[in-house]
């Protein structure tokens, strides 16, 4: 179901992809280039509010996210914005929902936008998509299959989607619409993409479990326990690697894998890679090109063992 509407779109990396999640940024761009997909970075973007600003006031978060969409639509003329980070993606979707359904959010956004001196974002101006939608909708599984140079065959993958990609489901009106659409209870876009790249996806029960990312520092023990559940469930299902699609989840899994060992004495060996890194490798890109050397879980040895690289 390739749709060329998605061949040149606005790209909103967000703060995490310029910091701890830089390998996700590198690999997303490298995959786009390899597939001939154009990404135009949103000019002079700001933080979407992440998980924190809403706890001060959700309407500020709506404003922050709306500014990003306003620039993409009104200053760059785009009607699709792609955000690879679950947090950014979620917040842009939430802002879209609130600006459609809540007068109060609309008023505050109008007020802050006019004081800040830019056009107010109007609901419906852009479609916000995740990096998973981007690959699915522009290239699709068939497109991937025809471009795979280095099949991931033999690599056992647990696909981990986390919270913000599917919850709360009311902010994702396009999901759960039957065949071809994403499911909020059993998401499968990443499974589909990596399956097309040759990977052996394992049956993984904790696809949408929470990694405790919101309290990764403020309540670290809770986060460590939640991450440990995920890592152990992945190992029990036979996975070599957990594929991620969110910088917060990814860093959380890496960090609490170490913390679980230091604090609770529980060691897990499953590797953690962004789905864009795996896809890039399958498309024949050099692992360095997709930032694998930045991964804390050091997956190169395992990838060599499985004859992937």
């Amino acid at each position, binding site marked *: 179901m390739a749709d060329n509407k998605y061949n040149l779109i606005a790209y909103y990396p967000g*703060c*995490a992809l*310029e*910091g*701890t999640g830089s390998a996700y940024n590198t690999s997303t761009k490298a995959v786009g280039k390899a597939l001939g997909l154009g990404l135009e970075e949103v000019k*002079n*973007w*700001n*933080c979407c509010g*992440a*998980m*924190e*600003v*809403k*706890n*001060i*006031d*959700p*309407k*500020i978060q709506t*404003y922050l996210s709306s*500014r990003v969409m306003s620039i993409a639509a009104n200053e760059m003329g785009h009607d699709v914005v792609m955000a690879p980070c679950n947090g950014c993606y979620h917040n842009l979707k939430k802002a879209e929902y609130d600006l459609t359904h809540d007068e109060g959010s609309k008023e*505050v956004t109008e*007020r*802050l936008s006019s*004081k*800040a*001196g830019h056009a107010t974002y109007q609901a419906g101006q852009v479609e916000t998509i995740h990096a998973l939608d981007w690959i699915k909708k522009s290239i699709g599984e068939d497109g991937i299959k025809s471009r795979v140079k280095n099949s991931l065959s033999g690599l056992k993958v647990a696909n981990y989607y986390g*919270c*913000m990609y*599917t*919850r*709360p489901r*009311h902010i994702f009106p396009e999901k759960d619409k039957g065949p071809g659409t994403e499911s*909020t209870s059993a998401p499968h876009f990443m499974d589909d993409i990596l399956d097309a790249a040759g990977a052996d996806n394992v049956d993984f029960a904790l696809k949408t*479990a*929470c990694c*405790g*990312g*919101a*309290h990764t*520092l*403020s*309540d*670290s*023990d*809770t*986060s460590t326990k*939640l991450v440990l559940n995920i890592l152990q469930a992945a190992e029990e299902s036979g996975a070599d690697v957990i594929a991620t699609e969110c910088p917060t989840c990814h860093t959380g899994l*890496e*960090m609490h894998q*170490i913390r679980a060992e*230091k*604090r*609770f004495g529980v060691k897990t060996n499953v590797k953690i890679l962004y789905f864009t890194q795996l896809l890039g490798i399958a498309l024949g890109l050099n692992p360095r090109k997709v930032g694998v*050397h*930045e*991964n*804390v879980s*050091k997956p190169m040895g395992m990838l060599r063992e499985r004859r992937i690289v």
Partner: protein
Amino acid sequence: MPIHEKSLIRPENLSTHDNLTIDGVDVSGDWSTFIKARVVQDYNEDLQDEIAALPGGENIHRCWQCGSCTNACTVNALNPDFNPRLWIYLIRMGFEAELVRDKDIIWQCVSCNKCTSACPRDVVPEGVMKATAHWLELKGYTPKTPSTEFDEIFSNQVIHTGKIEDGAVLLGFFRRTGQSPFQDWVIQMGKQLAMGLPIRMLMRMGLATLFHPRTRGWDRARAAIEEYVEEQEAAHRKALGLGGSSHDPHAPRQAQPIPQAAE
């Protein structure tokens, strides 16, 4: 189990006598268990309205106590005392004292929104948890929790510069909560990270802590947001019947120790 029994019969409200004979019948031990009479007079009739006045709490009145939120809850699976359905009940009944018993765990909600997706009544229990945690702080029942400290450091940086630089947030958080940034797992993570990184990348990371990323021309947005935040803070205090302006944001605060696992 009906809700009230669960919350009202606590171990300290039970009494048994080791040696007791009534009318010639020996009722020692379990046979003489009594539940102490309990009279609730300390209702806060405004409690639901107070929570509803804070961001996230708006829909609390819609709850019909089905329990789907607690059933779906991530934190409840780790700690059965973490019970959003029960807290919503206590708030709606005005049982302030009962609610405050759980003041040290309510903030632990990880915002996974499993409850919000499960709730058949659009209560947004996740929002109610945040509003309740905020309420406990505003009322002075708890010092600022580590979660609020983190939210504030983070949000202040976004409001000031438009962007986030994770290194600065991390250091700011450790400083404000009195923790050492040199904890064993942080060091280990740094080591494993540095192993695969070329020198150029390390230099770039070093530079990022000196030159913070920022959105150009952000001053007007910043002023507009700050003005709005001040208005909202005043409105929240008013709704809770608290006088005066909000506390001095720069005043030193007593940081709560972070719960740590046994070594």
